[in-house]
Structures are given as structure tokens and as C-alpha cells.
């Protein structure tokens, strides 16, 4: 019998990415909530290098780094693929997922840079429903922060990065994303997330 466990944190979009992929493929898993302010022995044992979530455990084997885990999930459960099959399209998906990941890390930086990123991403949608085309793909999953969390951050911080008049195409994608039946299941409740961010954005260095 397959044994899949996921160490995650309800606030973190990174561990939600993994949940999204597992749910899209109909893979059952045991979710083990972590408290990153008080790291458990389990987390330190399973991810000694980075000591972060998400960590996926499959039949006793542990894996870390959300994008690495997404590729593992796609290769292990090939139904409902999240990566394209042909090498060039696959490379493009990996490029954009990495682009988003890098922008995530520069989160603390300038609003202008973020806006430029959103402009570029709008171009990448190319009139499609999702970055993956008609269905959700790896890039949509990687962009989950933008799809949902960003809205909450904007409300809490009063910063307006993505507005419907400035980015109509991206907002349409955001609508589609949060309405998607499987994505809905992985989104933390908006009011709880709001409260959590309010508490954290008050702190001098906000990092999860």
C-alpha cells in the first residue's frame, strides 16, 4: 500500500502547492501540520538541510523543495499531468515556475519590480484560461501565491499591486484559479489567513 505523508503549514503557499498537485491527481495523503516557529523533531529529521515545509514522504522516502516535489508527483502519478510532455514546452513551464519562485524570494523588494512581473505574466497567459492552457499546470500551481494569497496581503497591507483596471487579464486568471474545484479545497480560509497576516505583517521581518 502506498503511504504518502505531507509535512506542511496551513499559512504556507509552498506546502499548499504540493497539496494542490496531490489532489489534482487524486492521491490520498496524511497531512501533518507543522509550526515553523517551533520546529518539530520530525521536520528537522526529514529536512535537515533547509528545515522548511513542505516535505513529502512517500513509502518512507523524504523529499523537500516544493517545485522538486511537484516534478516527483508528476512522474510518480502520471494521470492528470501538470507538466507538458514535449521537452520544449516542459522547459518553458520549468522556466516560468522558476521565475515565479525567484520573484517570491524577492518579495520584500520594490512594487515596480512586482508590477513588471505581473505584466510579463499576463503576456504569458496568451488568452488561455490557465498558464497550463485549458487545464491547470505546474505554472498555475507555482503561482498560487498570486492567485489567492496576494489578495489577502493587499487587503492587510493596504498595498494595491494587482487591481482589475491595471491587470484585467491576471485578475480573470485569479478568478478562474480560485473557482477551480480542486484549488478551492487547498485554499486556507480567507478570514483566518487575513488574521494571521495581520499579526505577522506587524512584525519587523515577515517570512514564512
Amino acid at each position: 500500500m502506498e503511504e504518502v505523508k505531507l509535512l506542511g503549514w496551513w499559512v504556507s503557499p509552498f506546502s499548499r502547492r504540493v497539496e494542490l498537485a496531490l489532489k489534482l491527481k487524486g492521491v490520498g495523503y496524511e497531512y501533518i501540520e507543522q509550526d515553523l516557529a517551533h520546529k518539530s523533531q520530525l521536520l528537522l529529521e526529514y529536512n535537515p538541510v533547509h528545515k522548511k515545509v513542505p516535505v513529502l514522504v512517500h513509502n518512507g522516502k523524504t523529499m523537500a523543495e516544493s517545485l522538486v516535489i511537484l516534478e516527483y508527483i508528476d512522474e510518480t502519478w502520471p494521470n492528470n499531468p501538470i507538466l507538458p510532455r514535449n521537452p520544449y514546452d516542459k522547459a518553458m513551464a520549468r522556466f516560468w515556475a522558476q521565475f515565479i519562485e525567484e520573484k517570491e524570494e524577492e518579495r520584500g523588494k520594490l512594487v515596480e519590480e512586482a508590477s513588471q512581473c505581473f505584466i510579463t505574466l499576463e503576456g504569458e497567459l496568451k488568452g488561455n484560461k490557465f498558464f497550463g492552457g485549458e487545464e491547470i499546470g505546474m505554472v498555475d500551481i507555482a503561482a498560487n501565491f498570486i492567485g489567492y494569497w496576494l489578495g489577502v496581503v493587499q487587503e492587510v497591507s493596504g498595498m494595491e499591486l494587482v487591481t482589475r483596471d491595471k491587470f484585467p487579464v491576471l485578475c480573470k486568471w485569479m478568478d478562474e484559479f480560485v473557482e477551480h474545484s480542486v484549488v478551492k479545497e487547498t485554499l486556507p480560509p480567507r478570514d483566518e489567513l487575513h488574521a494571521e497576516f495581520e499579526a505577522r505583517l506587524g512584525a519587523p521581518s515577515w517570512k514564512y
Partner: protein
Amino acid sequence: MAEVVLLDFWGSPFGMRARIALAEKGVKYEYKEEHLLTGKKTPLLLETNPVHKKIPVLIHNGKPISESLVIVQYIEDAWSDTAPLLPADPYGRSQARFWADFVDKKIYDQGKKIWANKAGEVQEAGKKELMESLKLLEGELGEKPFFGGETIGYVDVALVPFYTWFYSFETIGNFSIEAECPKLIEWVKRCLERESVSKSLVDPEKVYVDLILVLKKMYGYE
């Protein structure tokens, strides 16, 4: 345009990754140098990598791919019938991707703290962090001849090009990487026995004189 073109810069460890992967697969390609030290980027670079405007860029049948590890994985997928760089099993692949990602997250930035600064707090922090990262990698290598096992693989390709910058780190930082990570240096020497690596890597002293010292002057890191 040739079927396979690589836009690159001679001293870039990221470019060297692509060179090694192409050589491992026996792919003939046209190498085009971007003269980054002149501060000018060619129209071809700006056109094929408008997002980052950086090398390496691989152009295969006119279609560009950028980001060195994305390029290496593309080379692996497009020429899948020879010299696999990743193992067949998904778990083995996830481990290789994890460690290559680790190299990407740590080595360049930690090394930069050393070469781009004068002796002091930042440089010392860089030395400490770099040695921690290299020791972790050395531990991951263990008793295997290569990270990929019996032959070179994805992690070897990701890491070995940084060896060409070690001499610069050591000279500027006044320390010895070999003294603390002898097994890692033995691994480097094994990699250099392969033609794909020895032909792709450049002379570390040339990197120091013609690249690092030039960059330090250009950016005022002195």
C-alpha cells in the same frame, strides 16, 4: 543559424553547465560568445532572453531556452537516448534535483560575499557559509565516485563548474578549500578526467586575472 546554438560567456559557471551537458550527449553546436565585460549585450541575447537578458541561452531549431538548470534538463529530455544525467526512478531524480537546487541557492551568492568584498565581516560570513555548503555536498557525495554514482550526473554538472572560481575565492579570501574538503577536490579531479568536463571548464587562474579582478575593478568592489 545552426541547429543548436549556445549563447555563453567563457568564464560563467552557468554556461559551463550547458557545455558539459551538450558534450556528454555528443551534440554538435555553435558556440557564440557574449562579451559581457564590454557591458554590451547582443541583439540576439536580448531577443532570445528578454526576461533575464542573461547567458547561457540554448537555441535549438530556433527556439530559445534560458536558465542553466532548465537548459540542462532540456538537453537531458531532448537527447534522451544517450548518457542519461538523471536516474530513471522518480525518487533518485528528486534527490538529484534537490541537490542541484541547493547548489543554485548557495554557492554563487556565498562565493560572491568572498570575492566582491574586502577582508571583513561579510567576507568572513561568506567563507563560513561556503565551507558549510561544500561540506554538506561532500557528505552527500559520500563514497561514490560521482554524485551521479558511477558516472557523472545532474548534480556533478551543476556543481563542478564552480571549481573554476575556487582559486579566486581562496586567493581573495586567503583560505584553502582543499584543506577542509579534500574529498570534494578529489571528486573535481575525477570529473576533469572526463573530456566533456575538461573541455568545458576554463583555467581557474585565468578566471581570477581576466574575470574576477576585472569585475572587482568594474564594480568598485575593492
